């Protein structure tokens, strides 16, 4: 497989990134936004993407990767089509998130940090989602699901083919 010839950053994406840093005194400032953009298109940020972005932003791959690996929502390994982020912080813990998590793990047949073999779901724990009053809570992609009970899970997952 020849990954070298196939670029991850398309011309459109590069144009978009240029647009981002135009608003800042230094190109570096667009780093996080650019990583998010890459992820929007590719779901995760590969080594190749890091190298290509480094060129666009006049940074070293090391600098880009320092940022990319620091943020837990920038994925440096492939993830599934849908990413489940289940809150494991204190309110959700009190409200029994563990039951939900266990159910998810059992239903999907994966542990935290893993992706289902069909590439559909990745399951990741996350800290407080800021919705403690409606704990336990989880994100799937961009959707927030609150007041979770084990019973609801099947139906929720149905919505993410």
């Amino acid at each position: 497989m020849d990954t070298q010839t196939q670029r991850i950053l398309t011309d459109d994406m590069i144009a978009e990134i240029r647009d981002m840093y135009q608003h800042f005194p230094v190109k570096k400032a667009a780093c996080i936004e650019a990583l998010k953009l890459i992820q929007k298109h590719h779901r995760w940020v590969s080594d190749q993407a890091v190298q290509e972005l480094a060129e666009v932003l006049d940074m070293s791959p090391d600098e880009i990767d320092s940022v990319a690996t620091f943020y837990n929502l920038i994925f440096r390994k492939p993830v599934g089509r849908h990413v489940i982020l289940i809150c494991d912080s204190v309110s959700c813990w009190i409200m029994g998130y563990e039951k939900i998590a266990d159910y998810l793990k059992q239903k999907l047949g994966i542990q935290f940090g893993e992706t289902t073999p069909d590439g559909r779901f990745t399951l990741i724990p996350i800290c407080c989602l800021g919705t403690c009053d409606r704990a336990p809570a989880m994100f799937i992609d961009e959707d927030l699901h609150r007041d979770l009970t084990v019973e609801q899970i099947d139906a929720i997952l149905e919505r993410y083919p």
Partner: protein
Amino acid sequence: MATIYIDNVPYEVKDGENLLQACLSVGKNLTYFCWHPALHSVGACRQCAVIRYRDENDTRGRIVMACMEPVADQARISIDAPEAKKFRAQNIESLMINHPHDCPVCDEGGECHLQDMTVMSGHNYRRYRFKKRTHLNQYLGPFLHHEMNRCIQCYRCVRFYNDYAEGKDFGVFAAHDDVYFGRYEPGVLENEFSGNLVEVCPTGVFTDKTLRKRYTRKWDLTNAPSICHQCGLGCNIIASERYGSLRRILNRYNGDVNGYFICDRGRFGYEYVNSQRRIQHALKQEPAGQWQGLKKDTAIREIRNRIRAAKRVIGIGSPRASLESNFLLRELAGAEHFYAGVSEKESRLIKEVLHILRHSGVRTPSLKETETYDAIFVIGEDVTNTAPRLALSLRQAAKNQPKEKAKALKIADWNDAAIREVIQGQKGPLFIAAPYATRLDDAALATHQAHPDEIARLAFAVAHHVDAAAADAELPEKAKAFARQVADALVAAKKPLIVAGTSLYSPSLIHAAANVAMALKKAGKEAGLTYTVPEVNSMGLMMMTDQYLEQAFEQVYSGQADMVIVVENDLYRRLPADQVDEFFRKAGTVVVLDSIAHRTGEHAHFVLPAGTFAESSGTVVNNEGRAQRFFQVYQPRNDIQSTWKWLQAFVEKEQLAAANLDDVIQQLTMAYPELEGVREAAPGAQFRVGTQKIPREPHRYSGRTAMLAHINVSEPKPPEDPDSPLSFTMEGYVGTPPAPLTPFFWSPGWNSVQAVNRYQQEVGGMLRGGNPGRRLIEANGSSLQYFTDIPAAFHPDNFHWNIVPAYHIFGSDELSALSEPLQERIPALYLALSPADAQALQLQPGQQAELNVSGQTLRLPVVIRPDLPGGYVLVPKGWEATAGWLFPVQSSLKPMQV
């Protein structure tokens, strides 16, 4: 000054410092990790906790990080309060949760800041009984070994590598308990100062691979205070030996020179000392091609006879030999028959530098002072590759103007994170005009690439902008704008610094730099002027003689001299091979003293094994005019000895024949009053602390009675050192010796390099009793007129291509290039040219081009460099095939015919 109370005892400390620095300066033991005297404070590790009280009535106080608190008069703190102690012990315990229990197999063990701090904090029992987080290590090149599991997340490495040295290929990755310090992917660490991580990292994450190959604990090493011989800056180093081989180089703090850091050439380029190419015994070649070993006495007798029989003996000295060795040669041959072993071109350049240093009235700063200038103009030098450590200082100086913003906000000098937040990577006025893009360009506000003659013209024009009385040169448009920008920035600065050097072999460039500096001084600026020079003792040598190599050749050609003594010099690196061949054909008896076998040695009738810096003592003078003493590390078990000691056997003068180093220096300063300061470079051999010598070995040195037992069961008498107050054993004074005599840094409770704290008057400041070295030249008055030798504008010539030298930190220096770890980093010889020229000549990258330099044909692979403006080409300086070229050379140029 301010008075602070530490555990109710008053201390006088310096204003403007932080409390950690103040506590350490008054001799307190306070633990710390992230703070570093050159990298300052970020408050990241929480290890320097103390209790700070509001006033004497406050009995509770609150925990603060000493490194983040400014010294304030009447401040009251406690180091010993139980809460503070407990905090520090618990903090270290948590920092070490993932730290392996591997001290016995860790290269840092025994000289580890983490060990020291752990003991100091009182945390001596490890309670964590769970699985530890582990990391994969990376290959980082031939210099550094990586062992990430030992990391305690202090962030010093990134703060040195990325923030201080401004390297780009290193970083910190991931978050929480999984932080990783290394490269994006395994590979050679590119920064020229990477080796400092060995000393900056307080644990065993980054350790010296060259030491690792022949590992020895700190306490088992024999050490000497030495001077790096790998460029003209003369950084202070500690050189260490065991079992007859040199095992590592460490930085030796000198508050005026290298401070806490040296370059990788200096740190890892020492292995030529252990090389197979070392000459071990006296040799005789007679008849030609037949070599035989000689006993020392026989060699001396035979050479003596030849000298007596000779009509005239001439001596060829060397810029890589000490003052003492050159001086003995001068005494042997006579002043009028002593020649600097460098070409006329080079000798004139350095003479010019000396002349300007003596008479321009502009100060030449030390490396440390360099960091106080606020605008810099580099003229022609690829500093990182010709005088590496200077580049690191220039990077710091370039940050001075942006830092003003932080000062205006009343942010203290040591508050590193806050300062960085304010300056946001903004660049200060550093300008570089060089024949090609240099490794310092990323720190520069603007750069300009041009042929050396055009750079000289540009610098003349800058001087003229500053002072209309200085000669002016017409410039092309682009250069004109650059010149104006530079001149304006220099005039706007308080302390502008001009940096130039001998690397392009252009006297007018040296003059132009002087013009700029003098014009700035005239304009009322506190201007500085730094010249780099090629070798460790280039300056010292040219302070001793005006005569150069071609004149020595003339002596032979005219039939006046029939015997030649060459000292620590490969003449093939000084002049084109055909000239040197010719010289040796006619030279009569040739005696060569050197440490390494080379082409010059092949022509000798007698070869004597000379010591390198590791087996000799002597004095060298750096680019700043600072005389610095280096001391023999160990006594080799063969006939190797200092060149000057060999030469003693041949001098007539009684005072010299049996003299020790001090006596030689005495005679030297009588002959050269300007070198008087050499005497003060270090205490003489008679010096004692009480009645005691200074031991080269730590008091824990082991194996002494056993290490030679396979030869003789009774321990041999230890060698004596008549030339210095240092002993070759562990016996002697245990404590802080005078700074120039410090063979290692060690203090009770402080086993790591950071014991240097205890050797300084105040932490990060001057060494006790003053920093070593004596400046021999001070800028007095100003009797110089502006120079007017503006070179003609450069016009490319497609039949005679101008070849300009390119420099490489790894490769351009003769001796370090022979060191194995460096060899991996030395690029293959190449020819670089601009894209347009390459196209015109139909040369592709990697293709062989054919050059013809002084009758010698050379084929080199082509490299295309977009930074080159065209009209001239680059070839690396110092490789065997190019070492003797008298740059700038000319050559025809064409693709190799297949």
